[in-house]
């Protein structure tokens, strides 16, 4: 099968992939894993030119820049049937877009339309595409960190676990306090590094105590934070985005691991 026939839209869903700025810069593997999972679910994937969703501006109180970035992203992405991203945090930001604009304005209507069709990757695969299982193998014992925005703003909890259960060779061991924040918080980790460090230390202790050899999560911000801490502590626990394991592309070195 050639690339072009493989990507023919089976269910006719045109999905614009929001790779997210962190994945774009740090870990393209995650975006390619997302593309594979979406294509396997019968979607046609497009990648509009993109920079950032504007969340750092929004969460820093810079409404004008947040609005400008929202307009840029809406214009680039609104032509597709769905916007899907491998991040609860960035998709959560897209769901906030309508609050940036005056009620009833043309931009607010467009923002609301975009928010309505924006989905976190795993929620989209399970809840919209009806994916029940993936065709992947992973030899390891994993534990799953529930990233805050995905969990509490978008209700992502059961979907990753459902799909992970279908990965052959994979055993899931839940950690204590999987739902507690890892302390990343975007710019929080730079503004209040000592508090952030305490939070990520507690998170790493929960991960180590779980006995798992791999930590998975759905947001690269959390993963860079946790991997950075685990590696500084000398841990051998592998850290990966959940999409890498589900797509069966976990051959690249794990996050923060050497060659």
């Amino acid at each position, binding site marked *: 099968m050639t690339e072009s026939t493989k990507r023919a839209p089976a269910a006719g869903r045109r999905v614009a992939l929001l790779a997210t700025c962190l994945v*774009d810069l740090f870990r393209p593997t995650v975006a390619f894993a997302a593309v594979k999972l979406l294509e396997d679910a019968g979607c046609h994937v497009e990648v509009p030119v993109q920079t950032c969703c504007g969340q750092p501006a929004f969460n*820093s109180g810079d409404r004008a820049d947040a609005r400008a970035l929202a307009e*840029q992203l809406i214009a680039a992405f609104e032509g597709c049937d769905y916007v899907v991203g491998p991040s609860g945090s960035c998709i959560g930001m897209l769901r906030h877009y309508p609050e940036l604009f005056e009620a009833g304005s043309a931009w607010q209507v467009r923002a609301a339309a975009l928010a309505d069709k924006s989905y976190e990757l795993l929620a989209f695969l399970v809840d919209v595409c009806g994916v029940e299982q993936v065709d992947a193998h992973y030899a390891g014992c994993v534990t799953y960190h529930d990233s805050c925005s995905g969990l509490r*703003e978008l209700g992502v909890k059961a979907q990753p676990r459902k799909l992970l259960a279908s990965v052959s060779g994979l055993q899931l061991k839940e950690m204590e306090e999987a739902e507690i924040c890892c302390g990343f918080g*975007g710019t929080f980790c730079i503004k209040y590094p000592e508090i952030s460090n305490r939070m990520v230390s507690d998170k790493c202790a929960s991960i180590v105590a779980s006995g798992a050899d791999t930590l998975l999560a759905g947001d690269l911000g959390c993963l860079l934070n946790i991997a*950075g801490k685990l590696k500084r502590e000398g841990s051998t626990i592998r850290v990966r985005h959940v999409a890498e394991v589900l797509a069966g592309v976990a051959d690249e070195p794990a996050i923060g691991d050497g060659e």
Partner: protein
Amino acid sequence: MQLTSPDFPRNAAHALHDAALQRALGNLKAGFPGKRAAAVARLPEFEALRDLGRDLKNHIIEHLDYYLEQFEASVQRQGGQVHWARDAEEARAIILGICQRAGAKTVTKGKSMVSEEIGLNEHLAAHGIEPIETDLGEYIIQLRGEHPSHIIAPAIHVNLDQVSDAFHQHHQQYGKHERQTEPRALMNEAREILRDKFLRADVGITGANFCIAETGQTVIVTNEGNGDLTQLLPRVHIAITSIEKVVPTLEDAATFIRLLARSATGQEISVYTTFSAGGRRAEDLDGPEEFHVVLLDNGRSQMVGGEQQDMLRCIRCSACMNHCPVYGAIGGHAYGWVYPGPMGSVLTPQLVGIEHAAHLPNASTFCGRCESVCPVRIPLPRLLRNWRAREFERHLTPQGYRFGLRAWAWLTRRPALYCGLTRLGARLLRWLGGRSRRIRSLPLAGGWSAWRDMPAPQGRTFQALWAERQRAAGMEGKR
């Protein structure tokens, strides 16, 4: 109390290195959330009750003037008096005036965060009136010369050893020379000493969790019974509370009581829920001769109709701080004023001015756990974000941070330039990572690299790789 919120980072660093405090916070995290979750699990309609609580509070706030006037009329009907205090200074003056007219030498106090907000104890003491805290936690921190670090568990930061020390030091004057170390013995000692204080107090001051407009009652929700002795035994009872505590009916108070203890301590109902309706009547055997309610505004009425209005729904249960990972890391004193945790980080800037509390709304990862447990569904992250927007507008955001943010925003609005620079950045950082693929020290990100490595990028940006893949697929298609 002295405001130390501007020193938040230093306060937090101090707290993180306080081993005793960290042990105490570990107990808090292990206790309250689990108890709340169990209580919520036992009440199937809890989520619907939260909706009801939110809607009721919204209705009250929209008709605040009406219910406050109704409450005043109802209190007067029972022979009590309502005093309106615009700010802390007025509230202190009103309470001091009542105490002085009563010829008070000592006043007993039930637990009240509003009395902390107005700095009542210091004011009374400065005018020769001895305030005696009777809630055990409040009593302990009063002996230690501290302020509450939590709104319902004020001495949560104090360990048993420290309580023993405080009692041993301060109870010698009552002939208690033996240093007690068992919780039960310590409690009995405090009870014995406080019993005498209750009997000798001239005025009793309590807070009020609710003020019921239709009946003119104030309600306190407690677990120790000290509030009842405080308000029943002295000749004068003063309830000090804030205007948003008014509820229309007894039935409505019951709704909030069902939410409050479950959210706070995981109890279905607190040990004591006490309704006070005016002073002693002719046929009553006991009760105070005078009943005063002091209603504090202190900037709250300005929140009505504004973007922070939802904060007025707060019923002071403490669930937000009990579930907050930042509070759990640093405790309440680091926040630097009366109200800590997420609710405090929204309220404190309102009450003391955002320019004096600029750190507080920023000291959150927006993890949203606070909002997910709030019994009246206050969107706390959104309200914190609103404060950040006010700070940004008023140039209170640190200049370096502001500059970095604006420069980044400028770049992200130029996709071609952004994509070019990130391609270079990905290569540069990949090179810095070397064979370990980790960067141990990063310029401009010392806060990160002091405690963590920075995983290096894979080397190419996704968009660059995707464009290549598209070109390859296109060529294959043409072949």
